[in-house]
């Protein structure tokens, strides 16, 4: 069981919780011991807003073990509004509709399951920003 490993990063994964460097004030994700911008060590916990844009992406048709159930899926680099680049799966999207600059938002989803008897791993993914007003429905 990899329970402690997953448990340790739960907060980061469930809610996109990173840090702000106390020295240079820059946002950091994922959390690190040393600031990648100024190399200082003091950071404060900072939940990110969850909005960003697709910076680059690739669709996976031959997924690694543990993820085959979800293939094909698109993995993207997301440029968060606060600055950091995050690697994450996209969800609730047609793979052919993904494009650079696409506005996306964070959702918490199932990442994988450790087999039928094992832990269910949840974490952040990104989906196209939900329009708050009704749009024309697709046809079947």
């Amino acid at each position, binding site marked *: 069981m990899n329970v402690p490993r997953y448990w340790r990063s*739960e*907060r980061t994964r*469930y*809610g996109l919780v990173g840090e702000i460097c106390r020295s240079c004030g820059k946002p950091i994700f994922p959390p690190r011991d040393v600031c990648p911008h100024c190399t200082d060590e003091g950071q404060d916990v900072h*939940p990110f807003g969850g909005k960003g844009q697709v910076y680059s992406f690739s669709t996976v048709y031959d997924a690694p073990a543990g993820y085959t*159930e*979800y293939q094909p899926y698109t993995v993207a680099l997301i440029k968060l509004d606060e600055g950091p680049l995050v690697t994450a*799966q996209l*969800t*609730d999207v*047609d793979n052919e509709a993904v494009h650079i600059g696409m506005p996306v938002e964070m*959702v*918490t*989803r*199932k*990442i994988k399951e450790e087999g039928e008897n094992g832990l*269910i791993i*949840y974490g952040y*993914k990104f989906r196209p920003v*939900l*329009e*708050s*007003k*009704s*749009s024309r*429905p*697709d*046809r*079947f």
Partner: protein
Amino acid sequence: MKPLREVGIIGYGAYIPRYRLPAAEVARVWTEGHAGLPVEEKSVPGLDEDTATIAIEAARNALARGGIAAQSIRAVWVGSESHPYAVKPTSTIVAEAIGATPQVSAADWEFACKAGTEALQAAIALVGSGMTDFAMAIGADTAQGRPGDALEYTTAAGGAAYIIGPREHSLAYLEGSYSYVTDTPDFFRRPYQHYPEHGGRFTGQPAYFKHITHAVEALLQELGYTPGDFAAAVFHQPNTKFPQRVAQMLGFSKEQIRVGLLAPKIGNTYAASSLLGLTAVLDEAKPGDRILLASFGSGAGSDAFSFVVTDLIQERQRLAPTTQAYIARRKPVDYALYVRYRRKLQMH
């Protein structure tokens, strides 16, 4: 029933998955199209969705509307009949994800389709007793129907979350509630069984209709109201016909149930069903509107509530996606994709 301290809904949030299975697809596969369709289509969860993820998004929407810090919530209660684990609470995952841990009470509730309103009754009592200021009650499900069974047309997925708090901060305050419960085994699922059993027509008169009518009639009598006093009414929605018929039996008009009747477009979202009807009504409600909510859970029972909308509704309605926005976000799937998404394929 009414708590000593006046309480109400501070924030509410909906969530409905993106995928839809038209009922005609089930009829095509199992009856060559020769079947009456109880709904137009139902919502289907994606491969990476379950009751926990559905509850998390509904809870985040409720927090956005409530405008309170997650740390001020002292209870996170999730009602469902499809918790992802047999042993391990869904509510701890939700509480952690929304940032409400660790000074919080968390538990999962079970009572078929009324697990969510049972959690709501408890949240009302917890805040109403003065033990805490804010408590969250969630109804969420990814319901199962046996392939080819009548339930397969309707068993859907969705979630709705409510933050209960003091009346003075509420967007709708509670006038009273009532619960009516008997041991009526109209629908059940034994341990380790994937699909539930149901009593067919027995789920109607002695179960759904009896429990809802008794709960609602007793609540109206307690409060001294008639159906005409309500701007809107929401009943549990196992299909399109049942809520329409029970409304008629109780003397509510088609117009009163129109906005909250979501089953034709999303199916039966179980513990979320009546609670999602209420989020849809609140999305369009005006100050002063009196709203009736009546759930039904097999086994069996009904919880009935009367809420009155306050002036705070208008500034909070648009702080999160509306129920109709989720319904409009719609990707139809055929029966084959549905079978894959719901893991009905034997892979080994």
